[in-house]
């Protein structure tokens, strides 16, 4: 029976298709029109968001509020944070955190790019120091915190140093890669027209390495943000990192999750800002690849 069925199908199909074609065509168009809303990415995201929030609300409501919160609870906690009626001011903490991060990041960017260029230009320096850079890069920076406390105590200097240590390595490594990867043919061009080392460095090597340096800065910002929160959690009595520790100790789950949401928003904003800068500065990147 089944065998016959499957054999007869291919014979029937063309006839059905031919006769059905004029009728099905408008139907297909209508179906497509209806489907296009269902396939709209914002529609999908909103539906997914509502479902996730619903599940969270249900699971959160049936859990001890000491351990977990609900979306409604988090919004209330967020309100408390913003109103400043709680023990901590969200705005003040955010400013402190951004200051800590910015100080560490700027130092890391200057040192990282300069050191990366030096390693990229000088083979000897690279051979001598590359093992240390790689070893420190893979060392979990949090393991160094006891040492940082011994050196700097707790407070601003210790935090800035932690941020520096977290952010500097991706910038060193990316800058070095950028300087080393300047296309051979562009260096040949500078050589054949006898362009001097200073002009070659300024007008060829640095611009060619800029996309890599920008990628390093983007990674560095993300690392610096992780670094500042970790540092504030253990080395500080202010800032968003400290607030997280404090809310955790008080079992204030709504405000704890509210603060974490603030971190997510700041992190996303920082990354897209650097990405925006990257796209502005490296507009020629695609052609550089095409005509190497």
């Amino acid at each position: 029976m089944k065998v016959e069925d499957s054999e007869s199908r291919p014979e029937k199909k063309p006839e059905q298709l031919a006769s059905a074609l004029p009728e099905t065509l408008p139907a297909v168009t209508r179906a497509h029109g209806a489907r296009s809303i269902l396939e709209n990415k914002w529609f999908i995201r909103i539906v997914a968001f509502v479902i996730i929030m619903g599940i969270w609300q249900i699971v959160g409501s049936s859990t001890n509020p000491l351990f977990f919160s609900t979306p409604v609870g988090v919004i209330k906690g967020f309100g408390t944070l913003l109103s400043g009626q709680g023990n901590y001011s969200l705005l003040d903490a955010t400013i402190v955190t951004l200051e800590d991060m910015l100080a560490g990041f700027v130092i890391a960017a200057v040192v990282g790019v300069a050191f990366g260029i030096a390693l990229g230009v000088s083979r000897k320096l690279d051979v001598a120091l590359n093992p240390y850079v790689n070893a420190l890069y893979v060392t979990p920076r949090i393991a160094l915190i006891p040492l940082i406390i011994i050196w700097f105590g707790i407070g601003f200097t210790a935090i800035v140093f932690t941020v520096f240590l977290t952010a500097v390595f991706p910038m060193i490594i990316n800058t070095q890669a950028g300087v080393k990867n300047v296309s051979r043919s562009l260096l040949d061009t500078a050589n054949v027209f006898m362009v001097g080392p200073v002009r070659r460095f300024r007008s060829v090597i640095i611009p060619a390495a800029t996309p890599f340096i920008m990628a390093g800065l983007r990674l560095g910002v993300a690392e610096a943000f992780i670094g500042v929160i970790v540092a504030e959690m253990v080395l500080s009595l202010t800032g968003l990192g400290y607030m997280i520790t404090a809310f955790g100790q008080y079992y204030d789950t709504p405000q704890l999750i509210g603060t974490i949401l603030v971190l997510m928003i700041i992190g996303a904003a920082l990354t897209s800002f650097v990405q925006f800068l990257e796209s502005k500065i490296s507009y020629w990147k695609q052609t550089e690849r095409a005509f190497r």
Partner: protein
Amino acid sequence: MIDLDRVSKDFVVHQKEARQLAVLRDISFKVNEGEVYAVIGPSGCGKTTLLRIIAGLEEKDRGSIRINNDEVIGPGRDRGLVFQTFNLFPWMTVRQNVEFVLYDLTSDERDARVKRYIDLVGLSGFEDYHPHQLSGGMLQRVGIARALSIEPNVLLLDEPLANVDSQTAELLLDELLKIFEKTRKTAIYVTHNMDEAIYVADKIIVLSQRPGTVMDVIDVNLPKPRWQYDVRGLPEFAALRSKLRRFLGLAK
């Protein structure tokens, strides 16, 4: 003018085993002032390497190269090189790409030089464009303007039309001929294209399969200016073409 005497080059293939690949063997020829020489040969025969050696970008292992009796020991501003891959700096505009190689001039001289050579290659009005906004043919015009702008004694061209579509290549070739005519430049034009070689050159150096040796130097006695006569249709052109084909067939 340009005098190559038994120039040889090996590539080191394997450092430890000291294995070497013979690339060029005893290349000798002379190019007179104002003449255009084409260098043609099968792919991999070392013609681009030969041009890079003359440009000073690579070292020869034996032999000598003299330009106006001065031994070539490295790059020099007596030679202007046009690259197969254009090699423009993507972050610089057309003007900046040319200015970049004119660092030895005062700013007035530099402006005049840039204008003269950008006009010469027909790119006036495109000075402030970036390379990614230009077509392949226009990119190579910038490459040619840059090489000419240092006013070298010798123009070296490394398959300049290989990355340009064939119609643009034909137009650009005519403009190159006009430029050679106008500036009376001595030039070495490396190509793998027989028609291009015959059209552009006073003499054609035919290189053999690797290791490259000079198989023959062919005189091209076609009437000038060649863009005015349809020289590609002349029987002499066809005869040269079949001669070259025989050589290149032999080389394979």
